[in-house]
């Protein structure tokens, strides 16, 4: 046992002496939280709107007025010509255009109907759809205003309640995701790099010759990262709760227990990668290139997994961070207990066991 502690202490020295790596370990999660919390959002703001008003009557002026006070859009130009719209789109400065045909108001008054054209730069489909929706809502608002005079029969109204996140804060969605992502990537990267580096330098053989179970030697490499990850997790949690007003309704104990499980899963994955490559360069490149973007995509906090084609949904089942993301959301935001997440917990347990078994087998083969 004492020897195990000695190994662990050595590993801690390695980690703390490398400042640039510490930058990654702690700096990245903090940077991500700040960015996601304050900078990244799917809402569309400050979008430039171009207006082509051929009507120049009360109705068009009224709608234009509404558009100009809307927070999400800014009226860039009040152009006259249709053909100038394409040029404006090409400069990338304008995202959407609205065209009022001549006689707009007159048509509304006499025929009770009129058409408006909305032209969107759909190179970004998301912005196009969202902006079109904003405009459509504003137009509906105007429509309702001019019909307020006549009461509508058979009115079906809706009462909407937002569960878990009434203020529609973005933090509730991505903070668990950032936790999952950061823990996964950092643990896998660091563990595999640490082990492969010793292999390359040759000091691994020294360790293996010691009268200590070689597999435990390897495990001792993972321990500092386990501790560091818990610290990281705590920092992220504190930042999100106090800086971003993220709610935390569930049991702290359960949260840390599940997080520890997930960290072990990530470390096991790192172990497996390190057992499969002998060159530090390839270990790192595989972890970096092979895992970064898939982890971001398939954890489920950036894009909804349900929308992906089926094969991709199956792939996402294999990514440990996806399961942890569900668990974290359930505990932190929904305030649920183990009863709700036993299935996901089992999956993580299974993954960890599987990864460790394969690593052990590969490791023993190599020793032979």
């Amino acid at each position: 046992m004492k020897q195990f502690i000695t190994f662990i202490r050595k590993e801690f020295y390695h980690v703390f002496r490398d400042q640039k790596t510490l930058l990654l370990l702690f700096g990245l999660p903090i940077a991500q939280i700040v960015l996601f919390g304050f900078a990244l959002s799917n809402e569309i703001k400050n979008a430039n709107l171009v207006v082509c008003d051929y009507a120049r009557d009360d109705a068009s002026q009224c709608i234009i007025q509404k558009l100009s006070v809307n927070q999400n859009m800014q009226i860039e130009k009040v152009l006259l010509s249709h053909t100038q719209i394409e040029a404006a789109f090409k400069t990338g400065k304008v995202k959407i255009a609205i065209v009022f045909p001549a006689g707009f108001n007159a048509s509304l008054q006499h025929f009770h109907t009129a058409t408006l054209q909305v032209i969107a730069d759909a190179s970004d489909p998301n912005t196009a759809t969202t902006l079109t929706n904003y405009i459509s809502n504003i137009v509906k608002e105007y429509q309702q205003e001019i019909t307020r005079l006549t009461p509508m029969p058979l009115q079906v109204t809706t009462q909407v309640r937002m569960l878990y996140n009434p203020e529609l804060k973005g933090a509730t969605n991505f903070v668990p995701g950032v936790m999952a992502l950061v823990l996964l990537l950092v643990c896998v990267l660091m563990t595999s790099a640490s082990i492969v580096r010793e292999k390359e330098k040759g000091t691994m053989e020294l360790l293996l010759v010691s009268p200590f179970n070689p597999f435990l030697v390897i495990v001792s490499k993972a321990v500092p990262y386990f501790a560091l990850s818990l610290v990281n997790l705590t920092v992220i949690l504190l930042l999100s709760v106090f800086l971003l007003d993220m709610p935390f309704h569930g049991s702290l104990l359960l949260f840390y227990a599940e997080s520890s499980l997930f960290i072990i899963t990530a470390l096991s994955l790192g172990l497996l990668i390190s057992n499969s490559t002998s060159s530090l360069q390839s270990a790192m490149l595989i972890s970096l290139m092979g895992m970064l973007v898939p982890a971001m995509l398939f954890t489920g906090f950036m894009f909804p997994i349900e929308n992906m084609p089926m094969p991709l949904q199956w792939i996402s089942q294999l990514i440990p961070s996806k399961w942890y993301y569900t668990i974290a959301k359930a505990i932190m935001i929904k305030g649920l207990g183990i009863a709700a997440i036993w299935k996901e917990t089992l999956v993580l347990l299974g993954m960890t066991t599987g990864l460790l078994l394969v690593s052990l087998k590969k490791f023993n083969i190599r020793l032979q």
Partner: protein
Amino acid sequence: MRTIQFLLAKEFRQIFRNRALLPVIFVVPVIQLLIMPLAANYEVKNINLSVVDHDHSSYSRQLIASITASGYFRLAGYNNGFTASLQEVETDKADIILEIPAGFEKNLVRENKQSLFIAINAINGTKAGLGGNYLGAIISNFNNSIRLHWQAPARWQPAPVIELRSSNWFNTYLYYPFFMVPGILVVLVTMVCTYMCSLNIVKEKEIGTIEQINVTPIKKYHFILGKLIPFWVIGMFIFTAGLLLVGRLVYGIVPVGSLLLLYAFLSLYLIALLGLGLLISTYADSQQQAMSVAFFFIMIFLLMSGLFTPIESMPGWARTIAACNPVTYFIDVMRMVVLKGSSFTDIRVHFLVIAGFALLFNSWAVLNYKKTS
């Protein structure tokens, strides 16, 4: 000049002999380009709806039918009590609950007014907002169809209807990959070139061959060119394979604008990125350090480039960061030239900025790299 030839021959030999590295450079980006655009999709569909029906009337049936017919919603649960539906939301089987009160149909006709109750899982605020809007729109349409059914239009003054005709230019069917593929390609090229270039040089530092080079009369700029050129070529290659092969064959993306313009920008961009890799390698003593620093920057670049979320929506300070990010400019150029056919005049500022980055990173790196310490 001859020296560079020798350097290049050595570099290419080493790169292609590295069995472990080749798949990472060539295969992994292609696979990611095939998978990622399909996954990166903000469309909201297949929302799971759980209905609590206290009424069991023809109206409730019609309403549910029109909801599921819209294509946006899936009926995930049909219960008699709210608790059952709530549990479905708790276990993520359902996203939205629609509660139809008892006597809905009867009371609507008698009292002219009824309320439906909706509860939405709002952990993902955007999804909740959109889902709520869709459901609201469907209910509103349902409302209108009931009205028409019950009363002839002449009995009430028809409300003025403003019809919105929307056209989508450059991407008529709102095909999401058109938007994501160019951006993802940029990210992949960036990752490969920056990581590989910085790791490559640091590796030489670690094993000691760099000392052997430093003791020869090789000029500094020869050595640096010898390191940059191979990865520049590789970057060009990956980009071409990604855009013209995968992009065209798998996604049907045909660049609208000038390919020449695109490649001119790409060349400059690669020089800037490789300069960054070089710069990182002059500060790192070990491969792990180089990797950590490179990873940190790439992550920040990724998030702040407008790839996943629009830059215009960011607060002022974040937009400044995005403006200092070379990736932002290339993604912008890609989307503008490939999808809209923008011309040089439209992107001349981008060119200027990237040239600035290329100059900055490379000069800094060259100044830093000392053959004699």
